[in-house]
């Protein structure tokens, strides 16, 4: 059973859909054990049973879920770059334990009183997209910054108070986004 589904990624080269997921289990002694999975399916009808389970990576600390989310963000990048599944797995395992989200808000040019929720690099657009949470409006907003230009983020979408970003994903070429908003 998948408890937390982090990513679903299309691997165009293999015609597969990859799923990065985390499963939380109660184990003897009252501990919560978190196991990450890398799953694939070339036949949607067999998912999630037709899967490739990965080994347990993090044990006994569900508070580290955010770090796992960051690692899975790297996994997404690795999967797009590595046509071979095994390479992608090695990329991911090799990056675990580092902190890829160590960012300086002043250097980024983001406004104060925001909390960085997610960051993506769009290859074709040579831009960085950041989803930040505004404490004043209590909404998630999207900012973008061209990599080769001044280090200043600009609001990407017309944003209205109380109308927040639910989620977004870049397309595989990295030139556009798909954004889900709600109010």
């Amino acid at each position, binding site marked *: *059973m*998948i*408890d*937390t*589904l*982090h*990513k*679903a*990624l*299309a691997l*165009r080269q293999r*015609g597969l*859909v990859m*799923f990065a997921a985390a499963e939380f289990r109660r184990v003897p002694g009252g501990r919560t054990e978190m196991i990450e999975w890398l799953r694939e*399916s070339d036949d*949607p009808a067999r*998912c*999630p049973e037709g899967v490739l389970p990965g080994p347990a990576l993090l044990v006994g600390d569900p508070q580290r879920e955010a770090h796992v989310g960051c690692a899975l963000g790297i996994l*997404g990048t690795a999967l797009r770059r590595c046509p071979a599944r095994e390479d992608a797995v090695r990329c991911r395992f090799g990056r675990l334990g580092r902190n890829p989200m160590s960012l300086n808000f002043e250097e980024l040019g983001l406004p104060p009183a925001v909390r960085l929720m997610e960051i993506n690099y*769009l290859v074709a*657009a040579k*831009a960085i*997209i950041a989803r930040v949470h505004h404490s004043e409006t209590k909404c998630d907003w999207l900012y*973008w910054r061209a990599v080769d230009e001044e280090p200043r983020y*600009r609001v*990407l*979408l*017309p944003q209205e108070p109380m109308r927040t970003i*639910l*989620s*977004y*994903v*870049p*397309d*595989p*070429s990295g*030139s*556009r*986004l*798909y*954004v*889900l*908003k*709600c*109010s």
Partner: protein
Amino acid sequence: MAWGWAWTSEALYEVEVGLDATPKELMTRPAMGGNWIAALLGAGDNPAALYCSVARYESRTPTGESVAYKLERLDLATRMFSHICDLPGVFI
């Protein structure tokens, strides 16, 4: 499921990334009836599709209305959803 009750509208946009980006609306929640997209999980381009977790109302039960969460593929050309697998909840 409190999330569904609180949302009065929902829209899916395609945005070309750049200065003065103009979002193009692809779909609004009323187009999906009582169902809604809970999250976008990934994008594929062969053919162009989005992978979403989708909440779908199911028949009423003695304890109330039932909502099922599913992983689905949204074909951007036809705007049709196809089922991939069931999910145990909205958390992603």
